[in-house]
């Protein structure tokens, strides 16, 4: 069998995203990364949340699960635990992952299952037509913040570092090469990887535009001596650059959750024979007598 190409991960569905939406590039980067790491479409389970970005699971030729708002990660973790042979990628928006789903995001990072989580961060709620997001900058004017946001923006990468994530990366959707490479590294990382992708919403965010990002982003590869295994350096670098850096910010070698669970089978649970050994069952019954 010939190895897959990114075309194998295409389906014939035309995304309903606005022309110019940053999510198109994320879609394409996932397709390329999946092919590059040698997956076939059926090896991949893509679990997404609700939002414009959440529609992505329907736009890639792979097993796709479009869940509920904010719950992509719990569903994805359930899939991974059931079948550890699958490559599980979760994806969604900044509202999905950092507002309604922030609890799950933090706990998934602590838990460190071998899953890749891609956030399409446009700092606004796209699907519901332009309300503020926990990622919106101070003063950001939206239909729900007519006088400008008065809440602090949540810093996802710093939060990830503090929550014990073992792979923390940020990227920019037009930088398709860097983005693809980052997603590949995330998939290959054994453990939880979070990749926050600046994915501009051309319709509802007129502040954080493509040009704005081009002007303000710094590539970590341009910072001399940057060591992404050094958590302290990662944190100070983020703070020095107002979190606006791209690249792999931090990576740590720590056993994934699946490898630490006592008794958890090497063989995917989904492929096991469910019938209980009668002798084992008898011993369980005996414990109550």
């Amino acid at each position, binding site marked *: 069998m010939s190895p897959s190409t990114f075309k194998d991960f295409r389906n014939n569905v035309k995304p309903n995203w606005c022309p110019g939406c940053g999510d198109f590039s994320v879609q394409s980067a996932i397709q390329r990364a999946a092919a590059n790491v040698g997956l076939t479409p059926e090896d991949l*389970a893509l679990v997404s949340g609700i939002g414009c970005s959440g529609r992505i*699971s*329907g736009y890639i030729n792979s097993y796709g699960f*479009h869940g*509920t708002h904010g719950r992509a990660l719990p569903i994805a973790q*359930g*899939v991974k635990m059931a*079948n550890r042979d699958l490559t599980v990628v979760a994806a969604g928006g900044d509202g999905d992952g950092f507002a309604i789903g922030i609890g*799950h995001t*933090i706990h998934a990072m602590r838990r460190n299952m071998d899953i890749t989580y891609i956030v399409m961060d446009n700092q606004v709620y796209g699907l519901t037509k332009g309300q503020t997001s926990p990622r919106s900058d101070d003063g950001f004017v939206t239909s729900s913040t007519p006088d400008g946001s008065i809440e602090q923006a949540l810093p996802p990468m710093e939060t990830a570092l503090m929550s014990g994530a073992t792979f923390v990366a940020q990227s920019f959707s037009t930088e398709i090469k860097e983005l693809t490479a980052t997603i590949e590294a995330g998939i290959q990382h054994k453990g939880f990887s979070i990749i926050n992708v600046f994915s501009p919403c051309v319709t509802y965010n007129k502040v954080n535009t493509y040009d704005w990002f081009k002007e303000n982003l710094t590539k970590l590869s341009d910072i001399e001596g940057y060591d992404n295994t050094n958590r302290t350096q990662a944190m100070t670098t983020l703070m020095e650059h107002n979190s606006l850096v791209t690249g792999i910010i931090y990576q740590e070698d720590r056993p994934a959750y699946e490898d630490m669970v006592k008794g958890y089978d090497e063989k995917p649970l989904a492929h096991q024979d469910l019938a209980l050994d009668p002798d084992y069952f008898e011993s369980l019954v005996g414990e109550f007598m």
Partner: protein
Amino acid sequence: MREEIIWKVGGQQGEGIESTGEIFSVGMNRLGYHLYGYRHFSSRIKGGHTNNKVRVSTEKVNAVSEELDILVAFDQESIDVNYHELSEGGVIIADAKFKPENPADSKADLHAVPFTEIAKEHGTALMKNMVAIGATCAVLRMEVEVFTSIIQEIFGRKGEDMVEKNMQAMQAGFHYMKDSLGNEEESLSLAAADGEKRMYMIGNDAIALGALAAGVRMMPAYPITPASDIMEYLIKKLPDVGGTVIQTEDEIAACSMAIGSNYAGVRSLTASAGPGLSLMMEAIGLAGMTETPLVVVDTQRGGPSTGLPTKQEQSDLMQMIYGTHGDIPKVVMAPSTADEAFYDAAESFNIADEYQCPVILLSDLQLSLSKQTVEPFDLTQVDIRRGKVLDEVKEREDKNAYFKRYQVTEDGISPRVLPGTKNGIHHVTGLEHNEEGRPTEATQNRKDQMEKRMRKLDRLVERFPNPVAVNAPHEESDLLLVGFNATRGAIEEAMAELEKEGIKANHAHIRLIHPFPTEQLKPYVDAAKQVLVVENNATGQLANIIKMNVGQIDKIHSHLKFDGDPFYPEEIYQGSKELLEHESIHI
């Protein structure tokens, strides 16, 4: 000679009440008695009055009784709170240390036994529970030797010396009490049991074991009373079969994770109580819409809100049936004993797999936490049916077409493939979707898919084993008693009392709550002059469901109890009498 005695131990929570009750009960179980134990406890971990009441009988018992024969008291509060349950001939055995006083209007005899002092003589004050059990044996006119094996199991690891000391403390308690009783009539001596080996367990253990027997490998859950025992049991056992429990950050995560696992092909359950179920509702809807098998256990407790977290109630019924927004196919099952809980739990996974929908396994605090005698479970009675899961899928000519995961079929159930299967790629979404799982709002498709989902359950009721457990000795009855979950035993006992007076009573216990077994219940409603629906809630939720499905509103009455305690047979007897005499009930 008695065929049944009711025993209670009371004291401050966290002071060994549990171990006293446990050792006594396990011993009686091993002798072949049938037991039903109910613990009264406060949410506080330490301090606060707690008691454990155990019915010990030569026959099967399934209810808590209001009566009491023997009260073992570790403090005065235990006497003050419980003495009124004791009748003439009852015995209070109290630790002499706190100088127990028998209330003026107490009908029982008080025996002050120096529990603590005797315990200290033979080892440490901690052994006072052994002294109390020894004293109990003296009242029951039975030997303490039956407890040797249990003491051995508990203390064997700490050496023979410990075992010996505990047995001596028990013996000493026995002799002290025997002398104290003198030559009193042997009114509380207990008839011998049949010596059969039976299990002694709480309903939650039975549910957990049923899940294990059904092939469950994953349980994501968030702790809550009275559901936690299920996850605590499975975290001990699932590693034996390669699986695990994950304590999630909340119930939304627990339910969503269970959905993810089930989607990927593993039998996975979660369990909670009312507050957790409220949080799970959106996810349960997702399982309904995506046709993902899912089993959720709801161990009902006192609501609303945080309510009465450690008390009995049956008030989640409406939420379990209607809680989710939109219309989904859903099954709600309600076992009534630990025995049924085991087999129903196992079967719930077959139903979830076969009908590809969420199944709520409804329990209540009384069923979940009452420790009861159960005939040993039979694994050969448990079969595993996965429904329409395809192991292989043929290649399609149209490369762009997805596998039709939501194919419109006659029975509404579509073939399912697990992620990872070649040629099986499809999309799953909570949005309305076409046969391939792609989102669409087309009106005809919406109709087709909604009807397909809803007709999956068309034949469920007729296929469901025993949806209404009926005990109907009379073709025409004066009274039909109806209940669900743990009220079964109390209704049965009340019915027997009514029969003694020549009242023709039938009993129907609803085991399948949704879809409602209308055809199965209706003949008994038709044949009854009056119907009394017995339930632990304030609004008559089951009665309303019956009125909605069966009709005959005029003869359906409610007997409600929502003070946190389980129904006692005596109360149901009284309620029935009131209804029959006044054609209405005001309890």
